[in-house]
């Protein structure tokens, strides 16, 4: 089997002495986020696994300043930090909120929506492990249809589909949205680096497998991530300005069954349930294809202009003072 070569920034900012479980997608997410953003970064962490992973007082694994904040305030606290830094003349430091799905899809959603509508100038990274894992695997609105959690036991697994956070945020017209996966680190790093130079609200939704929560072996985290992406459960894409959809990786389109079978949280599913999930994935994929085709049609003429303008815009972005603009 051939080795895959990744082109990751060499510096390890995250220390190895963190408190994560083996195979944690959220921890790889932080590792790549910090690699992509560098040390001139402030991280805001609401209640989530990372409240623990970073380490107890007086330790901190992150290697950059971390402000632990209340569960539902990642986006609002980050807004305040960014405003405060700029008022003191610091336009360089990147402010990034790193939050779980509960803090993003559920309890922190209002603050996130508010910050997105105001187009606040920070990056929001959601490491989505599809349930409240830090409290012991309870369902969130990011939990997929059919999944077991401790609050959706196998005789009544989750009956609702996962909330479509990307479409919701696209409807906020923020300059940059992307999905990413720890199984595709080059793609993920590129997106975060792109996000770093765009002004305004940027949102990165990272698919983050959780071995104890999803019931699989830690060494399978990357494999499961890859299967989710290739089976179109979690397509890798970008959305510019809430309208311009781009696919960054063409999935091979394997059956969802293989992905589901890898995980204990779906073990109770019957063949009919799997068919429902496959149908849902196919429908959502068709919906996405429609958006991609529409984007191609509407935004194609703009693409060349965008790339030509890129350097000028970047220079503007770097010299700007407090102007929130989308630059790419």
């Amino acid at each position, binding site marked *: 089997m051939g080795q895959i070569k990744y082109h990751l920034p060499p510096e390890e900012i995250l220390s190895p002495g963190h408190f994560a479980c083996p195979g944690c997608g959220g921890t790889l997410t932080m590792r790549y986020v910090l690699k992509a953003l560098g040390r001139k970064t402030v991280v805001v962490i609401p209640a989530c696994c990372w409240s*623990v992973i*970073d380490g107890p007082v007086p330790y901190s694994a992150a290697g*950059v300043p971390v402000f632990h904040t209340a569960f539902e*305030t990642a986006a*609002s*606290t*980050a*807004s305040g*930090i960014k405003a405060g830094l700029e008022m*003191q003349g610091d336009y360089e430091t990147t402010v990034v909120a790193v939050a779980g799905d509960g803090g993003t899809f559920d309890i922190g959603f209002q603050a996130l929506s508010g910050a997105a509508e105001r187009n606040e100038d920070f990056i929001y990274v959601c490491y989505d492990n599809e349930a409240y894992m830090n409290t012991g695997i309870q369902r969130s609105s990011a939990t997929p249809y059919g999944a077991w959690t401790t609050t959706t036991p196998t005789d009544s697994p989750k009956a609702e589909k996962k909330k479509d956070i990307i479409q919701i945020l696209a409807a906020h017209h923020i300059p940059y949205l992307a999905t990413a996966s720890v199984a595709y680190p080059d793609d993920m790093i590129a997106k975060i680096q792109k996000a770093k130079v765009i002004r305004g609200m940027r949102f990165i939704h990272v698919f983050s497998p959780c071995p104890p929560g999803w019931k699989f072996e830690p060494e399978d985290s990357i494999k499961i991530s890859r299967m989710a992406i290739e089976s179109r459960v979690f397509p890798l894409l970008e959305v510019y300005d809430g309208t311009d959809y781009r696919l960054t990786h063409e999935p091979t389109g394997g059956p969802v069954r293989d992905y589901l079978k890898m995980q204990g949280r779906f073990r109770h599913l019957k063949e009919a349930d799997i068919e429902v999930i496959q149908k849902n994935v196919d429908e959502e994929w068709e919906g996405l294809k429609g958006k991609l085709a529409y984007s191609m049609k509407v935004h194609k003429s703009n693409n060349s202009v965008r790339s030509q303008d890129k350097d000028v815009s970047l220079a503007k972005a770097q010299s700007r003072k407090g102007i929130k603009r989308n630059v790419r």
Partner: protein
Amino acid sequence: MGMNDTNDLHKRNGLMHPSVDKVLVIEGTHAASYAVKLAKVQVIAAYPITPQTGVVEKLSEIVSHRDLNAKFIKVESEHSAMACCIGASISGARAFTATSSQGLALMHELLHWAAGSRLPIVMVNVNRAMAPPWSIYVDHNDSLSQRDTGWIQFYAESNQEVLDTVLQAYKIAEIVSLPIMINLDAFVLSHTSEPVAIPKQDIVDEFLPGREALFRVNPDEPRAFGALIGPEAYMEMRYKLFQAMEDAREVIRKVDSEYSEKFGRSYGGLVEEYCTEDAEIVLMTSATAVSTARIAVDELRSLGFPVGLMKVRAFRPFPVEEIRDLARRVHKIGVMDRNISFGATGMIYQETKAVLYNAPVRPKLFGFIAGLGGRDITPETIKDIYSYLLNHDAPESETVWIGLKSSQESRSDRGDSSSEAFGQNENL
């Protein structure tokens, strides 16, 4: 009013002091906004709620006219307003928000977060009764319900005091690393115009230089703030917060006297006494009811009654020494609370009782509830209370409700009006 009378009044209120730039006739909310401008606040985050809106409207104007170089984050809730202030403050900036009632209640969790993070945020709260039923009028249950969050709390008597206390508050907060809430009565101050001396900016700058944060999120010095802590250290951190609040007493007194030197206006620190030198009966109360009580005291004094007044300006830290000192000098203390702790009593009364339990001298203590949900507190209300104090050796119950309609507790329903009461007690 003649010109000389006006001058006298202005002199008394510190409006003629050399530090005064100009005198504006403004509402209490705007007095807060002008103070924020003078304090050179860098980040404002706020959400509108009646009757606080004047604060944010005037600030929006001030910021958009570039009279103040600040970022004004117009958030989607009070919860986010406080989170933004927490973020701004941990970045090292000077932060401000304003709210009222339900908005303050929504912030509750983050009030703990701000104090626990030891951030010198200053907030103006316009005291408004809690719903349901909906009320937009004054009482103090909103802020007093937040008494255990680790915030210093001031209650203002006038629009001038609102402005002066906001300026004092930033100084105090940044010395003791605790957040401060300045409370003003809904409508009675928030929507009532009074002459307010706006001090000169250069003198304010001398009194209150820019913030130098003791700690902040700084990529050159990466630290984690607010991380998990075990039972081996949590208690010590709480003790430090407790100690900071204890230390705040002296800081509040010192800052008030420094303010007085620079600006010619003093509020006595944690409390202010009025006509207490030879008083036998003293009423304690807070906020605008103090002004009303001053009138009642003047009137009763002119009739020869030995009454006095203590204004509770700071509720946190609670004025322990000041109250114990008062207790040594008087026969009876009444406390008029514009709030009620259900299942207990008025909160200032409660705390006063607690303070006196271990005091060497314990005068008779009376608790009164008045003015909830904007019910007027008039000089007659206050005189009813003094009358009760004059006519009773001890309170008939733990809480005496004043002006209550159709209740056995009601003083007014028993025809015990102040004129009759004082008529019966002319010799007192």
